[in-house]
């Protein structure tokens, strides 16, 4: 008898998703899909609003990577007022460093949240552990000391964000052309020395290595499983600086293949020439791909695994992360790594990388300097801007246009989780085939393995559902409006 297996909802991820797997009479996998079941609407309803509202409103796309959305919007507005990279203007040192500080703080807290609160339970308890245990409650019961360190680390990252943006979430720092404040000595010292309920930056760097240690122990015990689990092909994409290594705030978009050869590299202002997005009836999330290669070959992976695949080496001022990355690269003899569970290895390296980058920045006296903003003449107004950053989950793009009154007329957002749509579906299919294929008896733990492959991407299905528009609850609304609708419906 053919069967349809349903995971609803996928848990321990941000946002709403569901998985369906179709098995034939012989229990072979016919189909396996990740469905994004929600969606909101930002590209349309932002239209008509003043351009400067965009970074404030659009950060509400996501509560975990709002700094990335805020900065992407800010970079787009820099372009729009004639103070951005599209007009050949570079950001002043203090505002650029303030933006970077917020971004690295967010990467620290976002990765810590995803890694320890959502992903680590399987590493400690196993994929088929009791579902009631595979979560933060189980962690507290099993290892309260670890949880205390995680809480202290996450708190530090959140307080760092607050020092820059004024709130732990959805604050304001970036404005068109710069930032609205620099970092006071008191705020800096609290973060460096660990005053007032915080740990010190040196403790942060020490605690930040917990993730890596956990991964190494888990890998040592489960090497075969970790290395063969959902090994799926994809190109790897990241923003890179002039040295060809990841730059989380600014750079060119670079795509590399399995041999780490550059497939394409582009100025993100030209993204429309390079990317298309396909739509399927069974998910609200689109499927972006490189036009030149087509959908099958041209889908990219983004996020921690893609970034460490693209990057050759971290700089000498982040020595612990640099050494960890060398070890990572050695493991696959210099080839790009397609092992889905190694994304968690990459994520734990990036936790350490952000901690070390933050230490360097906090000691930079530019954070206390001025000026904070470039104010170009009104004649410099371009009315269009594009911003791209490396969000914790991967390459994030915002593109806006505004009219001469300064009201937004167009917005397009291509988020990291959407870029990963195809490779996530490949991972689900791979795990479904190896865990369920040919088996008559299916357990909950086998299906949790499928969720484990999804969690490795740390997908933010809240981010991925920004696009708007949908078949309405009441179909007759469309029918009443005429033929136009019928044109689109099956």
């Amino acid at each position, binding site marked *: 008898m053919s069967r349809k297996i349903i995971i609803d909802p996928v848990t321990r991820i941000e946002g709403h998703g569901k998985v369906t797997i179709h098995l034939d009479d012989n229990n072979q996998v016919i189909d396996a899909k990740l469905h994004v079941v929600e969606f909101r609407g930002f590209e349309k309803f932002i239209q008509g609003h003043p351009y400067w509202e965009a970074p404030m409103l659009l950060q509400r796309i996501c509560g975990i990577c709002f700094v990335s959305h805020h900065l992407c919007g800010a970079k787009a507005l820099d372009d729009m007022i004639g103070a951005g990279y599209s007009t050949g203007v570079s950001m002043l040192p203090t505002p650029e460093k303030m933006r970077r500080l917020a971004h690295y703080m967010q990467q620290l807290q976002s990765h810590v949240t995803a890694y320890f609160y959502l992903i680590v339970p399987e590493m400690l308890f196993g994929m088929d552990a009791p579902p009631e245990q595979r979560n933060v*409650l189980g962690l507290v019961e099993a290892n309260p000391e670890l949880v205390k360190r995680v*809480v202290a680390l996450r708190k530090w990252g959140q307080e760092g964000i607050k020092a820059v943006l004024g709130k732990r979430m959805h604050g304001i720092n970036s404005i068109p052309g710069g930032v609205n404040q620099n970092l006071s000595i008191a705020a800096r010292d609290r973060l460096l020395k660990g005053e007032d309920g915080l740990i010190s930056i040196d403790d942060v760097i020490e605690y930040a290595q917990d993730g890596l240690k956990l991964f190494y122990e888990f890998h040592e015990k489960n090497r075969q499983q970790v290395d063969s689990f959902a090994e799926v092909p994809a190109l790897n994409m990241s923003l890179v600086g002039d040295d060809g290594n990841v730059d989380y705030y600014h750079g060119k978009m670079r795509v590399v293949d399995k041999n780490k050869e550059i497939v394409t590299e582009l100025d993100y202002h030209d993204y429309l020439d390079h990317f298309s997005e396909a*739509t399927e009836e069974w998910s609200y999330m689109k499927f972006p791909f490189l036009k030149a290669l087509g959908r099958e070959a041209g889908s990219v992976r983004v996020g921690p695994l893609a970034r460490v695949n693209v990057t050759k080496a971290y700089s000498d001022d982040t020595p612990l992360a640099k050494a960890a990355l060398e070890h990572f690269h050695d493991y696959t003899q210099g080839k790009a790594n397609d092992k889905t569970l190694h994304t968690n290895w990459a994520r734990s390296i990036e936790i350490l990388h952000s901690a070390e980058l933050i230490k360097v920045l906090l000691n930079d006296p530019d954070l206390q300097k001025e000026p904070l903003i470039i104010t170009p003449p009104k004649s410099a107004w371009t009315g269009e801007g594009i911003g791209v950053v490396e969000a914790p989950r991967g390459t994030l793009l915002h593109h806006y246009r505004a009219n001469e009154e300064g009201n937004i007329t167009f917005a397009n957002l291509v988020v990291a989780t959407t870029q990963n749509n195809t490779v996530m579906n490949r991972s689900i299919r791979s795990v479904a085939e190896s865990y369920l294929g040919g088996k008559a008896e299916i357990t909950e733990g086998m299906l949790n393995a499928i969720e484990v492959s999804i969690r490795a991407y740390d997908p933010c299905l809240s981010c991925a559902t920004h696009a708007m528009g949908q078949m309405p609850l009441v179909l007759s609304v469309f029918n009443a409006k005429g033929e136009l609708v019928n044109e689109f419906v099956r």
Partner: protein
Amino acid sequence: MTKCNKNEIFSHELPTTPIDPETQAKRDAKIQVAMIGFCGCWGCTLSFLDMDEALIALLDKVNITRSSITDTKRIPGRMALGFIEGGIANSENIAVLEEYRENCDVLISVGACAIWGGVPAMRNVIPLEECFREAYIDSETAVPDAKKTIPFHEDIPTITTKVMPLHEVVKIDYFIPGCPPDGATILKVLDDLINGREFDLPSAMNRYD
């Protein structure tokens, strides 16, 4: 949501590895809480984690059952509290919210989206058809010459014409405003409720940004 085909098997209905009875007994003795996020940004759930050290202490008294940070996919019994972020934006949200109302003694709307729809409700002033064209038909990244497709499938819920606050669908007992409310505010409310005190949010904590 609804199970209508006998060939359909939900993962949470399959055999699981049982939890150690002693651990379960300890959890059963605590105050039972279910959480969920509907149409929002997950930020209020993160604010829940922003209780920091106090969260660890809270977990001495509270057991979290169904939530987005645990793998319990249906409410397993009678709950003292339901903690809900996000507004109502699709057919599934409505059904799940009703399930929460039915099984929770007290329901709390947490954050701007749950309380009045929040930023996602900004779409309420735009006809759906226009939104629909913008996303899938007129998008500048749409695949040229491809068949125009709008997501519509038995495996995904339909979207409501308007984004609604929770209390337009079911009765809500308490409201914690903020976008998001911070960890201290959430702690104040939960600490009062689990210790049998009245809901009492001081005006200093009653903020809306």
